[in-house]
């Protein structure tokens, strides 16, 4: 599979779209927009899985894709949206350092390419592209987690990291256990949501955590 053939081109396009969603995620200040960007990324991830399922003739990838679309594209955004509406309007956005984080993200994408491309020099084009984009997505999610303080934004960052990992996983033909992995990821995120929902960090601001440090 090389550039110029449809399977590669579509996979490339979807990967690029996920990267775009990750940048969109980083550029948001309002939490509602964060949730929307995350949902978009989840849907694109699902589409990528469906596409790979078709290309690799691997039916379990269809399942993964459908789970991703249903959970990450619909269900989790709905829950997060409900959580948001419970917050006072003033708490629905955060004063995040958007511009520096975007710059950092760009540098990290460059870094990911510099790391991924030489390592995979002998591999197939699809794998190289896949790895480069997945690594970028992962680093971008980490940037999101590192630059945000609200609990919900950090959850979004974690899910973005996870999306990157899943993108890498669906690119490996015949990867067993994919269904298990995606359901486990689902469990993780759902558990996370439940955790946030049930307990509620005061004001959902993890900066308050620092008070309990030390001792």
């Amino acid at each position, binding site marked *: 599979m090389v550039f110029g053939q449809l399977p590669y081109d579509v996979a490339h396009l979807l990967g690029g779209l996920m990267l775009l969603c990750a940048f969109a995620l980083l550029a948001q200040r309002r939490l509602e927009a964060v949730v929307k960007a995350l949902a978009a990324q989840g849907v694109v991830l699902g589409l990528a899985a469906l596409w790979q399922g078709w290309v690799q003739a691997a039916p379990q990838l269809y399942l993964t894709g459908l789970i991703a679309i249903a959970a990450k594209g619909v269900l989790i955004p709905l829950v997060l949206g409900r959580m948001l509406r419970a917050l006072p309007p003033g708490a629905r956005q955060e004063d995040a350092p958007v511009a520096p984080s975007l710059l950092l993200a760009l540098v990290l994408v460059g870094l990911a390419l510099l790391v991924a491309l030489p390592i995979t020099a002998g591999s197939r084009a699809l794998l190289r592209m896949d790895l480069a984009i997945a690594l970028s997505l992962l680093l971008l999610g980490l940037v999101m987690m590192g630059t945000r303080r609200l609990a919900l934004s950090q959850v979004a960052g974690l899910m973005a990291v996870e999306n990157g990992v899943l993108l890498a996983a669906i690119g490996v033909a015949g990867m067993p256990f994919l269904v*298990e992995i995606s359901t486990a990821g689902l469990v993780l995120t759902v558990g996370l949501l439940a955790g946030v929902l049930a307990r509620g960090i005061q004001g959902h601001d993890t900066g308050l955590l620092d008070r309990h440090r030390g*001792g």
Partner: protein
Amino acid sequence: MALALVLLPAGAALLLAAWPGRAPLLNIAASALTLILAVALAMQGPGGDGWLRADALNLPLVLLAAVVGLSTAVFSFADVRGEGFDPAQSRLYHAAFQGFCAANMLALLSDNLGLMWVAIEAATLLCVLMVGLRRTPQATEAAWKFFILCGIGITLALFGIVLLAMAAHAVLPHAALLSFAALRGAAAQADAGLLSLAFIFLLVGFGTKAGLVPLHSWLPDAHAEGPTPIAAVLSGLLLNAAMLGILRGTAILAGNPAALPTAPFLMVAGLLSLGLAGLSLWRRRDGKRFLGWSSIEHMGIAAFAFGLGGPAGALAGLLHLLGHGLLKPAAFFALGRAARLRGSQAIGDIGGLARSHPALGWGLALAMAGLAGLPPFALFASEFLVAAAAGRMAPFWLLGVLPGLFLAGLAVLAAMQRLCFGAPTLSAEPAGRAALGPLWLHLALAAALGLALPAPMATLLRDAAAVLP
């Protein structure tokens, strides 16, 4: 047999969730049965098929997990009553405890790295539930930190596993893509660059969970804010499972001469953990946080030993994991009981334990002496082995290791002196057999490991060391 070892606690978890009536006793019974199964599995020796495989590397850890599981169940028999949980919390606690044991066994025994990942993730989720069980703001924050940091860690580890599969993609059949045994066999033909990248992610990912610096910050909080039995199993079981994940990575990479050498990474991470914990231990005021930092220190020593490699290094590392897995829960049992009697877990509030409660106080003193690396316990033997091996193979590293060991050991001894000697501050209420039994059992086992390694155990450890680079 291996399957039964996973299914038994899992079934017990369901049972405890369904019928919480006599939960504490059932909990102990399930853990005892698990221990019997684990001993039987160890007698049977390495073997197994497909997904679950007992090998020399995980068998010692399985035994340790079963022992710690049983003694923690016994300890929590009395301790949970003191927490003042309502029935729902109590039910959740017992079910999650057995569920955690099942997930941990699965993580240790599974040959399939994907399955191992799923198990560790499940174990983490259950631990988070239990850490946040007290519902105080501090417990919530600790659970949150645990969750977020380990969430990243576990996701990065998954990426490492995916990268391993990518690396071996061309040389392995699809069904065997994630099998540890198959990956080890095929490592020589796998893509070296991808293997190296995979190891970095495995180290960072599982290193977060094992509490290696710089991703350790969840560990002291999670140990301090959860119920004491959770701190014991966190240190005794989960950290070891995470370390096993890293070891599997190193074992695979060792098969490919073109891949990154793993030793320097492990040694640097280990030394950093040891150094930072050695300094940080002096500044702790909270007893359980103190023991949490001590776990970081010991994981660092073990990582350093595995990094040194060779039969001596690997043997020392495994022995260290075992010794720490026995002594740290012992210290938690004693300290947790003392904190319950005093109503505070600050080091400054507890004193003169050896005079007011001799059995408890001397037990804590011995456990902490063991943690400080004094004979006759296993940690003395392993630390001695590490230092000797380092002196032979990498003498310059000793400049970092020895001061770290002394610094941390002295800090532990200083804390021990404050806790156990001086004027008593505790009420006269007896310590209770549920705390003393597990405590002295662990001390006896750790001493046995340190004084004279039983022959079957020695064979097992030597075989395990042969697996590692």
